[in-house]
């Protein structure tokens, strides 16, 4: 049993998912080291890293959902809209209707569930392009957010504020500030939720039948059908998971910012897609990894931090960097894969 494919070299031997994941992790560490070397200061402090997590917990959650849909060969660009809608509905519920925190969590989950059911049905069972469906979904969510309440406002509910300000301290990671006072490192509740989501989804994708079916359907729909997989149901569930996670992500976002606004999470769908792609999820489906997505989010926010600490702190640089990174990684993907095909053919 000699390895007959040794001629195909490094790219050829590696599994697509691991190959792209490796590229992502390497790039992240290079970037972080680069940031420390060139910017110094802040990047060496653990809290800097935790702040990145705090600010991006919601993005991590939605990006994970996005990865699931993309692995199954679909896409969902309504997540940003859903996040905004969730934040506005919860804010209105808490402040104008004097609701409870528990109720607001139910609202968030309910919105996600409703979105998942409708979009999943349209995509999987009526065979409509996921892009068109979720484009409409995005506009609907944005429109609905304004209909629910036009003006942005901060939530004053005490129970909620307490939850928002809850910090989980990380022992041993704190720093001593100039005055000699020890400042402990902390993360917000959202980060814990995000990490839970990452761990659960990682396990689902790796070890469950459903998870593997996502990969199979994304890899080749026709083959998956021939292999005895219920393709429609699998697609439906992928959209359902993505939208529910968008709902949860929406609540975490709400918890972080503590306000409702129609302009919340503008372009978040793009960040989620970009994170997934940077994290090694293939646009064409069938390849991807949740750990990669986590690193995708971290890479994205690290580069944003670098950009802003390099003095390019005008708002537009963020959009441009993300788009540029997305563009570069799209091209890397297509080049690596083409290279791999060539190596195998030769």
């Amino acid at each position, binding site marked *: 049993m000699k390895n007959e494919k040794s001629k195909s070299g490094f790219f050829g031997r590696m599994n697509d998912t691991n190959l792209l994941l490796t590229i992502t992790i390497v790039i992240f560490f290079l970037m972080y080291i680069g940031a420390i070397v060139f910017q110094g200061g802040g990047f060496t402090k653990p809290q800097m890293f935790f702040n990145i997590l705090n600010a991006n917990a919601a993005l991590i959650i939605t990006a994970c959902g996005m990865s699931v849909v993309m692995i199954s060969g679909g*896409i969902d*660009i309504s997540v940003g809209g859903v996040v905004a809608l969730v934040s506005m509905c919860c804010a209105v519920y808490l402040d104008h209707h004097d609701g409870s925190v528990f109720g607001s969590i139910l609202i968030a989950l309910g919105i996600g569930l409703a979105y998942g059911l409708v979009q999943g049905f*349209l995509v999987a*069972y*009526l*065979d*409509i*392009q996921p*892009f*068109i*469906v979720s*484009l*409409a*979904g*995005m*506009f*609907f*969510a*944005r*429109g*609905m957010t*304004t*209909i629910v309440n*036009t003006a942005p406002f901060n939530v004053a509910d005490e129970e909620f504020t307490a939850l928002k300000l809850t910090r989980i301290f990380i022992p041993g990671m704190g720093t001593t500030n100039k005055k000699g006072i020890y400042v402990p490192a902390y993360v917000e509740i959202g980060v814990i939720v995000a990490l839970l989501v990452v761990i659960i989804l990682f396990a689902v994708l790796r070890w469950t039948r459903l998870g593997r079916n996502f990969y199979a359907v994304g890899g080749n729909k026709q083959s998956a059908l021939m292999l005895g997989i219920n393709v429609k149901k699998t697609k439906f569930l992928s959209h359902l998971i993505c939208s529910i996670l968008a709902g949860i992500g929406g609540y975490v976002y709400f918890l972080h910012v503590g306000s409702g606004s*129609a302009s919340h999470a503008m*372009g978040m769908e*793009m960040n989620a*897609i970009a994170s997934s792609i940077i994290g090694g999820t293939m*646009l064409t489906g069938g390849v991807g990894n949740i750990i990669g997505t986590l690193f995708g989010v971290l890479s994205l926010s690290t580069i944003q931090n670098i950009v802003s600490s390099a003095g390019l702190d*005008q*708002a*537009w*640089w*963020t*959009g*441009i960097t*993300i*788009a*540029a990174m*997305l*563009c570069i990684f*799209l*091209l890397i993907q*297509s080049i690596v894969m083409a290279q791999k095909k060539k190596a195998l053919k030769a």
Partner: protein
Amino acid sequence: MGNQLFIPILALLLLAVINLINDPGFFKITLGTNNAGNPVLSGYLITILDYGSELGILAIGMTLVTAASGGQDISVGATIAIAGSAMLRVLCGGTSRPTELAAPIFVAFIVACIVGMLCGAFNGMLVAVFKIQPMIATLILFTAGRSIAAWINNNELPIVPDPKFSYFGSFIPGIPIPTTVFIVIACVVVIALVLKFTTLGLYTQAVGINEGASRLNGINPTFIKFLSFVILGLCVAVAALIKVSRLSTINYSVIAKDIEMDAILAVALGGNSLSGGKFNMWASILGAYVIQFLTTTLYKFNVQSDALAAYKAIVVIVLVVFSAPTVREYMKQLAKKVAPAKKEVA
């Protein structure tokens, strides 16, 4: 041909009837004078004709892109911002409050055209050469576009000092009809001539219907797809001229917001398949005015501008659901079932 015009005309009549019932004076056109003391026509119909112009022009390019590539360009709103910003930069020469034009309007417009076509070429390259799905490829500029636009003018909002520039988006002194109407007519004439004196229409449809067969007949499908995006880029530049001229300045995050949705909707309303192939240009353009009619009607019913998207999203979903092959098949079978039952009754 005539068949395809049926849908937009029906929609138009429907809207007209609704408005007539709501307000019998809806179609009244009056001749008055504006702030500058020029004679102008006013009335809801004039508003629709005037404000539907950008959409009508975009519908031309969007129809070609849809027909050739089987996908849609969602970056048009963002590229309008880019082209418009480039135009302002040339007109104002980089200062935010210039006292006189830094360059003739004509030159600025040419620059905008080049910028628009470059954006189109970028999208076209990703789609035609790198074979990325159109909506994903255009997602890059969709995100980065407004940031790039802001960057071009250093995030300043320059105001064009010459009142002549505002003629394009309002009225030329002495002529009571909005200038935009003439611009649209010019564009329609140009595209009509192009379709008549070149084989663009035939090639585009052939590529959209059967790419393989087109290639065997000597057509270069890659070039045709690329070309359709470049033409859309040109349409974007013209739309940008109107948009910027209306205000004599620009608002990067608001200009042409959500217009991509309307443009796609116009193509769909024109009875053109969103998965490419045969197209009817005039139905699309008519579709654009139907959308504007809908928008005006919604405004008249006191719907806020931000909430419009939600209503339009519903229209889109209804349209795509009823044009989905699975749904059509189902309806056919339903019709078959109902038909014999009727016979029995008879």
